């Protein structure tokens, strides 16, 4: 049976993981490769490196970070943040990324999803969607999509955009709830389920993870195929292994 995936996200700025790290026994608390190694030992299913600087000057540093993480880890590695062009994606892939995640760039130029799917295969193309509950001009409830780190309304609905992204060649959807991000009150199961049921590609839920049971909820009520979290793992509030034990105890298939 296909396992539900647990994905750890490393937000990297200037070659260092930010959002704070609280692990003991790491050589350098903010070193992405060190943290990736730790998660791998704990049984993480996949890693996402999110470049939160994403400026031109930093791109080389980012490639070094990807290379350092990819060198010794043999699990899927996705890279996102600042991928605007085919060349940006190629640099990430050449450095060792298995998947590239596009957000604002895909909204601006949806054809980029197709270009990358044709070049690397759909399995290498993740469409990241940041969305929140909203009401449209006609008073209908929608999941409004935002670009540029949640700052700019894209005037699109997440369900409709996810369908288009799939049709254009995306192989997975990484859906982040702007309402829940950083709140630790649980994933947005209603929005996740709405998107997951609208597409046949996997949907990764993100934003709001706090308690172990939030993951049970997003895999059942939320119909998510995978769940992503950052700070609850970084601060060692929850070990990946303990989380998977909890999921298994609630009949959620996991890799243990």
């Amino acid at each position, binding site marked *: *049976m*296909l396992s539900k995936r647990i994905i750890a996200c490393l937000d990297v700025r200037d070659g260092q993981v930010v959002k704070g790290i609280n692990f003991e026994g790491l050589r350098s608390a903010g070193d992405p490769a060190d943290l990736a190694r730790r998660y791998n030992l704990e049984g993480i299913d996949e890693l996402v490196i999110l470049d939160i600087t994403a400026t031109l000057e930093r791109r080389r540093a980012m490639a070094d970070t990807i290379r350092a993480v990819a060198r010794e880890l*043999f699990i899927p590695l996705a890279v996102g943040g600042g991928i605007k062009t085919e060349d940006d994606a190629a640099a990430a892939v050449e450095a060792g990324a298995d998947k590239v995640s596009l957000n604002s760039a895909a909204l601006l130029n949806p054809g980029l999803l197709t270009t990358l799917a044709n070049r*690397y295969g759909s399995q*290498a193309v993740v469409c990241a969607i940041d969305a929140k509950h909203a009401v449209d001009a006609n008073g209908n409830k929608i999941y409004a999509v935002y670009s540029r780190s949640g700052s700019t309304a894209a005037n699109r609905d997440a369900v409709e955009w996810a369908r288009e992204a799939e049709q254009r060649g995306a*192989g997975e959807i990484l859906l982040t709830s702007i309402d829940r991000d950083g709140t630790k009150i649980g994933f947005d199961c209603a929005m996740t389920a709405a998107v997951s049921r609208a597409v046949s590609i996997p949907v990764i839920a993100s934003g709001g993870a706090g308690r172990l049971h939030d993951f049970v909820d997003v895999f059942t009520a939320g*119909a998510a195929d*995978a769940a992503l979290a950052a700070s609850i793992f970084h601060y060692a509030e929850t070990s990946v292994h303990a989380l998977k034990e909890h999921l298994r105890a609630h009949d959620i298939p996991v890799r243990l």
Partner: protein
Amino acid sequence: MQSRIALIDYKAGNLTSVRKALAAVGAEVYTPEQPSDLADAQGIIVPGVGHFGATAALDAEWTDAILARVGEGRPLLGICLGLQWLYEGSEESPDLKGLGVLSGICHKLQGDSTEGHIIKVPHVGWNSLDRLSNAPIIDGVADGAQVYFTHSYVAPVTSDSAAATTHGERFASIVQRGQVAGVQFHPEKSGEVGLQILRNFMKMVG
């Protein structure tokens, strides 16, 4: 001396991860530019992701060279699309022939959107191996071990299957017939289990 492994690049996906994993198990990898470059390969790997149509690049000259090496007893490993190519063909590209060393035709997994029984296609993620044989390629891999898949088409379970996996239906996830082996998942992305399978292939190479 390291064993020289020919990793065939027919432009079906990026090979960075495969190269890295092969280096980790001690293989010396080279990419043959023409079929004659296969002459001194001690083992051959056909990787690949994507559409079966991409295997059209493996034309008669390539298949003859590969079959000649296999005939000399040199091991061949197909990964993902490379496994499917070992069969007679695939419904994804009905006009194209596979290598044909394994019997059967590959077909598409069936999705299911029934509430409570949702089966998404493509099949993406970690799934378990049901061991079906003691073939060398699966040596040291525990029954139920999980590996990373990403694909929509599958090969049928036959007497050549060393392991099967279930996603809506049961399909061949590891195959071996003589010196020819294949894996439907990505050993380069499947943690220690994946590396063990690559080590097993290197043992077959000797």
